[in-house]
């Protein structure tokens, strides 16, 4: 199997993620889109690590980092979504556009 296949998988995952982030109106699904993107990056990192061996497994370490950060991020994100829902009874991102003047 060549590296290109794995990278293509990563690219597809990433595109799916972008689609989710940009097009979905449900905040939870947007967060899931972000997860997809992060995991696409993970796939890339692992793939590069496996194909270009330099011995110190930097790619895998980074992947671990990202998994950790992603978990934290989802935690905070879901908490915000929960709070928004309690306040406004909606998690539709179109209706949560307070960040303007």
């Amino acid at each position, binding site marked *: 199997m060549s590296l290109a296949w794995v990278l293509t998988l990563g690219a597809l995952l990433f595109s799916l993620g*972008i689609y989710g*982030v*940009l097009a979905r109106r449900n905040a939870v699904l947007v967060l899931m889109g972000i997860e997809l993107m992060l995991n696409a990056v993970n796939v890339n990192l692992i793939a590069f690590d496996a194909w270009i061996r330099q011995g110190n497994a930097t790619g895998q370490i980074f992947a671990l980092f990202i998994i950790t950060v992603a978990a934290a991020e989802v935690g905070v994100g879901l908490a915000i979504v929960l709070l928004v829902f309690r306040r406004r009874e909606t998690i539709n*991102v179109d209706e949560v*556009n307070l*960040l303007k*003047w």
Partner: protein
Amino acid sequence: MVAVLLAHEEAHATAQAAGFFAGNAWLIPALPFVAVGVIVFFGKRFRGKGAEVGIAATSISWLLSVIILVTRYVGGGGPVVLRSVRWFPLGRDLGLGLGMRLDGLTSIMFVVVTTVSLLVQIYSLGYMHGDRRYTWYYAALNIFTGSMLNLVIADNLMQLLIGWELVGICSYLLIGHWWEEKPNSDAAIKAFITTKTGDIPFLIGVFVLFAAARTFNITEIIHQVEDGNLSHVTLTAAAILLFGGAIGKSAQFPLHVWLPDAMAGPTPVSALIHAATMVTAGVFLVARLFPVFEASPQALNEVALIGAFTMLLAALLAMVQDDIKRVLAYSTVSQLAYMMAALGVGAGNAGIFHLFTHAWFKALLFLGAGSVIHAVHSNNMSEMGGLRKFMPHTYRTFLIGSVALAGIPPLAGFWSKDEILTEAFRVGARTIPAHGSPVVGSIVYGVGIVTAFLTAFYMSRAVHLTFQGEYRGHGRPHESPATMTGPLWVLAGLSLVAGFAGFPGWQKGFGAWVGVGGETRVPEAHLLLIAVSVVVALAGIGLGRALYARVPARDPLLRLGWFHTLLVNKYYLDEFYMRGIVRPIRDRVSAAIGTRKGGGILRYLQSGDVQRYAAALFAGVAILAFLFTKF
């Protein structure tokens, strides 16, 4: 040319060689500034509230000026004294100096400025007595005096420009001295902005000269002009631009509109700044850089024509004023135009001679008017009349000033005005070589004669309306105190004799050693021309007497019909400036861009929609990725 060559040879003239006083002439402008510091910080602790400090400093300056003038005169002119110190470096091979250039022109201007300033300060002891900003008034007068003297002594254009701007701000401060009333501060702003408008061409003119000559030093610039190092185009451009500054400062058409309004200031200020000294700075500038102007016939013609146009325009306006100070203000504009016209036809010495004599009698007239205003508490001649009985000193001195201005021999104004007219006539008749064109010379002569008639007429009118007939005002006017009449008599004396300094044919007279632009021409006189100007002046006075000897119920000038209306409205120029320029810029343009409309489009960018932001982000990344692969 002689002076310039001298200047070059004597460029290293040291303080010793020039004599102590000439070598240290920089003290003359420095002293008033020292006085300012003392007055501002300690003025109120003095018995005279600071006035004595200013008077003392100006007296010393005056004394030094007189000594320098006398020693220079006795020495037959003497060398041009140049001294300078490096002020600050400016880039790799450039610097700006702070220096002095002492020649005939400078020493004459010194005497004019310090004398009038000293007399005005003494006069103000009485006139401004009890004013709530008395101490500040003296401080401002001394800033002005120092700045004006600095302008005169400056050996480089930047230093001259500094004096030039400083006298402008002093004019602003003093016109608006009684700023509790809005018209006064309006007038002050108008004066500053109008002259500042002229200062921009002036500044650019200085830059043009600098770009070509690579120096600000006046002596070096003149030397380069004489050597023909600077192209004709450069010199024409520079001269015309510099003249823009002179138009503003010396209140020539079309920027003359500020001077009449400047009369809102205290009358002694009008005498000092707006009659005798600051307004002559424009004339001085042209005289100082006369070789630059002479090198360009076009520029000279412009100077002469603007002068000729302005003198007539202003003299006509002076006829219809009721405010005595405005009569004098328009008269000043008109007389400054005489000086300009003289310079424009190439008669630099005659122009400066007129500046010299005019300073005395116009300061006298203003101070006399101030004395009258002090007595009747009004500026309007319709509320005066018959003051001859109440104020004998003021009456006599004012009369002397008026006759001098009207041009009746042997008073000062006659000699200088007649020298200008004679020179213009001779340029027109091609009897002397001139840089200007003969046609222009003839125009200046013709307009000058008409203006001489009008001048005599409006002064006659003013004297009759003010001093003759019955008193029409309120209360009982009284003669002013000695601190005010004293300066009047001094100036009256000068107005009587100053003209002889330029007696035609006198080899050692005024023009022979002031040497504007290096020319030392001895004035000549033609009996026929003298006769013409005297007859014209007498006719003007006679007409004024005929019309106003007994105050008419209806102003006879109303018979001029629409022309009178035009004059009363000052040719609608003020209206035009206000409606055409000031209000559109101040109120409309600024409002259009000053309100928050610009952000309207950008506002749509900030929708608050996170997904739209994210889309922009990804688009940006894509573009960057594309660019990176390409480069």
